[in-house]
């Protein structure tokens, strides 16, 4: 046991916080108990160092206070040191914890979205959502009826309606075909009515779809009792732009 209780500490001394022995103020390891004075207690060498520093030639009031506090009672310096080091460590840990929480939330969102996306889409791009598929099939049925049907009385209107739902190369083909057909339709007073019997989805992606349609077409000439009935199988290829389905190809066989 030291006799620290019987004498005051010298300016270059301090009390070990672990064994209460008097040691040098600059010590970073207790020579009695071998405790590391830089770790765990919150103390660190650079912050202990000021104890050794002699007073400046013209000390300020604050400096005097620090030295006096150290000389008379070294213990109060420890809470101050803990507070100083705490300011350094805590915000970093807190920030990292917050970052981890945010990233965990983001990961949960991304994974959940991948499992339950707004539009059920498989990795190969196929959309399997019932409403989307039904919309594609409905659009294919309606559009094909517009493309195939005509009446010599409303030919221009029918062509406009058809041209509004077709795009790409099919537009040119349609124009060419209708230009050839127009004079014949007018002279024979022809009309064609298309009826879609069945529609099945061949494939559906977010911006394209293929639909198999079974279509019956009935061609009649005004005044004639005869009617030409054709049973068609048509694969309609469509593109989707701004939510609207446009027919880009029709393959009848």
């Amino acid at each position, binding site marked *: 046991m030291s006799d620290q209780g019987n004498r005051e500490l010298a300016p270059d001394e301090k009390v070990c916080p672990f064994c209460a022995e008097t040691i040098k103020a600059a010590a970073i390891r207790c020579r009695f108990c071998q405790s590391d004075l830089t770790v765990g207690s919150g103390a660190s060498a650079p912050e202990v160092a000021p104890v050794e520093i002699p007073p400046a030639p013209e000390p300020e009031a604050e400096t005097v206070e*620090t030295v006096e506090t150290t000389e008379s009672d070294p213990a109060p310096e420890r809470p101050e040191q803990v507070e100083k080091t705490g300011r350094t460590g805590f915000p970093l840990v807190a920030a990292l914890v917050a970052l981890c929480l945010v990233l965990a939330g*983001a*990961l949960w969102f*991304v994974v959940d979205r991948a499992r339950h996306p707004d539009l059920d889409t498989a990795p190969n791009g196929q959309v399997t959502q019932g409403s989307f598929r039904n919309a594609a099939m409905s659009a294919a049925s309606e559009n094909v009826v517009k493309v195939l049907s005509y009446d010599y009385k409303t030919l221009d209107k029918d062509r406009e309606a058809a041209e509004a739902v077709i795009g790409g190369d099919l537009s040119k083909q349609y124009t060419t075909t209708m230009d050839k057909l127009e004079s014949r339709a007018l002279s024979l007073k022809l009309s064609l009515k298309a009826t879609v019997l*069945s529609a099945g989805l061949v494939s559906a992606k977010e911006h394209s779809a293929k639909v198999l349609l079974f279509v019956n077409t009935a061609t009649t000439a005004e005044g004639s009792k005869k009617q030409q009935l054709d049973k068609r199988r048509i694969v309609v290829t469509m593109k989707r732009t701004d939510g609207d389905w446009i027919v880009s190809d029709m393959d009848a066989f």
Partner: protein
Amino acid sequence: MSKADIMTGQSPGPARVRHPVVVAVLAFLALLLAAACVAALIWPTAVPGKSRAEKATDRDLAVQVAATAVTKAFLDVDYKDMDKRIDTVLNLSTGTFRTEYEGASVNLKALAQQSGTVSSGSVRSVGIGDIDDDTAVVYVAADRRATDAETEKKRKAGQTVADDVKGYRYQLTMSLVNGKWLLSDLKFIV
């Protein structure tokens, strides 16, 4: 800067990290989470297990394959070996269709042998109408190319006679039975 630093004119050293292990673990965890986010964003299959859409696509494909196979089997006729072909159709079907086909198979075999029919089918397109976990309505556009004894007779006589090719429109109802999609009903769309 501490009072001692002011007094000695020294600048403070780099701030010490109080809990280096905790900080390191948290930093590693943050990096791991960030990498997982990026992976899940750019690579959907990084999410373990099959998504609902992926399972539905697999189901659709299985239905299309099964519908194609049974349609081709249905159109496959050879008067010389009907039993094998009838068995194939029966193995790919169930329910109402299987019962009706099995009942008609004797007549079918007799008709094929009587006419000397040989035919094969090719599927042009398959579209799925309605589908759920165990039932699907499928539309099939198929062609049937056939010859019979009469055709062969004309050919042998030196005449040029083309195969009879007809296009068909079928509505197939497929049912999932013990993990297999089987034909349970067939209708001609006229």
